[in-house]
């Protein structure tokens, strides 16, 4: 039976190990945005042994490239992008830098699922295509790295009760497989 949690970043190991695939989480605090291009730059920094532009330990990365904000708004529409494009980068951030959560939509590969088990991280799903609704839960946004990437720049977001569903938990479970098996008619 799915449970509902209210969590605040940064997330601890205890915060994430209580979660199971299918649970609902309302997340508050600071999260960081990054898509393909920004991930590539983060990994290049890791390879060069240099400091990353934000403290990753315990943090949550949101895979999103928002629309430009209208005057007076902190951000434009901001729903998740498809996450598999980050599969080749996420395990290193989880295993080496203790990234504790990712927000996106769509399937992750086995390497990401394994890293979530090994180093205790969660892959959360947000509702794709609900960019206007999700933007309401973002109270401020500030570009902190790679402004030249435009919508793909790394932003520091302040979120309140950001609605999420646990897709991959720290026990190797996958909601996409569990949920589909439950409703598949053979």
């Amino acid at each position, binding site marked *: 039976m*799915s449970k509902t949690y209210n969590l605040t970043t940064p997330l601890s190991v205890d915060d994430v190990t209580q979660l199971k695939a*299918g649970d609902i989480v309302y997340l508050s605090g600071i999260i960081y945005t990054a898509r*393909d*291009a920004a991930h590539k730059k983060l990994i290049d920094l890791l390879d060069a042994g240099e400091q990353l532009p934000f403290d990753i330990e315990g943090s949550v990365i949101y895979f*999103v*490239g*928002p*629309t*430009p*904000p*209208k005057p007076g708004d902190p951000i*434009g*529409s*901001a*729903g998740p*992008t*498809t996450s*598999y494009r980050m599969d080749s980068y996420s395990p290193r951030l989880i295993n080496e830098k203790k990234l504790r959560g990712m927000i996106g*939509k*769509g*399937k992750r590969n086995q390497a990401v699922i394994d890293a979530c088990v090994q180093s205790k991280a969660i892959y959360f*799903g947000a*509702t*794709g*295509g*609900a*960019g*206007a*609704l999700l*933007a*309401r839960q973002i109270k401020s946004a500030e570009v902190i790295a790679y402004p030249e990437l*435009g*919508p793909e720049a790394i932003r520091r977001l302040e979120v309140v009760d950001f*609605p999420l*569903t646990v*897709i991959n938990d720290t026990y190797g479970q996958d*909601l*996409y497989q*569990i*949920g*589909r*098996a*439950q*409703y*598949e*008619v*053979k």
Partner: protein
Amino acid sequence: MREIKYEDIVKSIRDCIIFSGTNLPKDAYAKMQEAHEKEKSPVAKEVLRQLLENADIAKNEDKPLCQDTGLAVFFVKVGEDLKILGGSLKQAINEGAELGYREGYFRASTCHWDTRANLKDEIGYNLPAVIHFDLVAGDELEIEYAAKGGGSENVSRATVLAPAAGRAGIVAFVKEVVSNAGPNPCPPLTVGVGIGGTFEKAAISSKHALFRELGSKNEDPVLDSMEQELKEELNKLGIGAMGMGGTQTVFGVHIEKNPCHIASLPVSVNVQCHSSRHTKIKF
């Protein structure tokens, strides 16, 4: 010879893009409500509730429904007896598209295939538009527009089957594409299927099939029965809204056909996410 002013086309395209990106079309909204009512999974039902609320917020606050405001795709029917005053039709469409995306605060999503650098300064804001022209008799001008996002394009597939594969082979291919796509293209989906023609003709037909009104019936009785069969089969996959498991995986299946080469049976499947932003302008 009928004449239409260049700037009238630019203005219409601009307005249509801004409206379309912020107002879920009535057919898609109705299908979303229907799916919300029918859905058995509580998780998927909540996703559909969020999507209906999202559509209301977008409409009331003039905000993009989705941050992926897509590449601008157009199907244009141009009458041979039509003259555009003050510029070319292609340029008018691109200019209107650029204005719509920029002034609607939509995202510029076109980039270089290799460097991945955004092309907004080099070519134009979210340009170039993808335009399919069709020259027809008379003096009409009809422009269909859709915002096509990346997530659902990424799972779309085309193939050329052996003629012996027939209807069963087509059904199997469509099922395979949607099954493999799973949660990635943001279901519930509209599934466009193009059959016949050449390799690229099938693909273009599968795209155009997505422009048909959701819930409308295919005029061809054979294709109509295939659409119903496929819808039932695809909903049995259990993928559900956003792939979290459920009974409502597709809003509809739309098929367009073309005559084939005697040696070939081309089939293309173009997947459309639940944010089915499409519209038609008649001048």
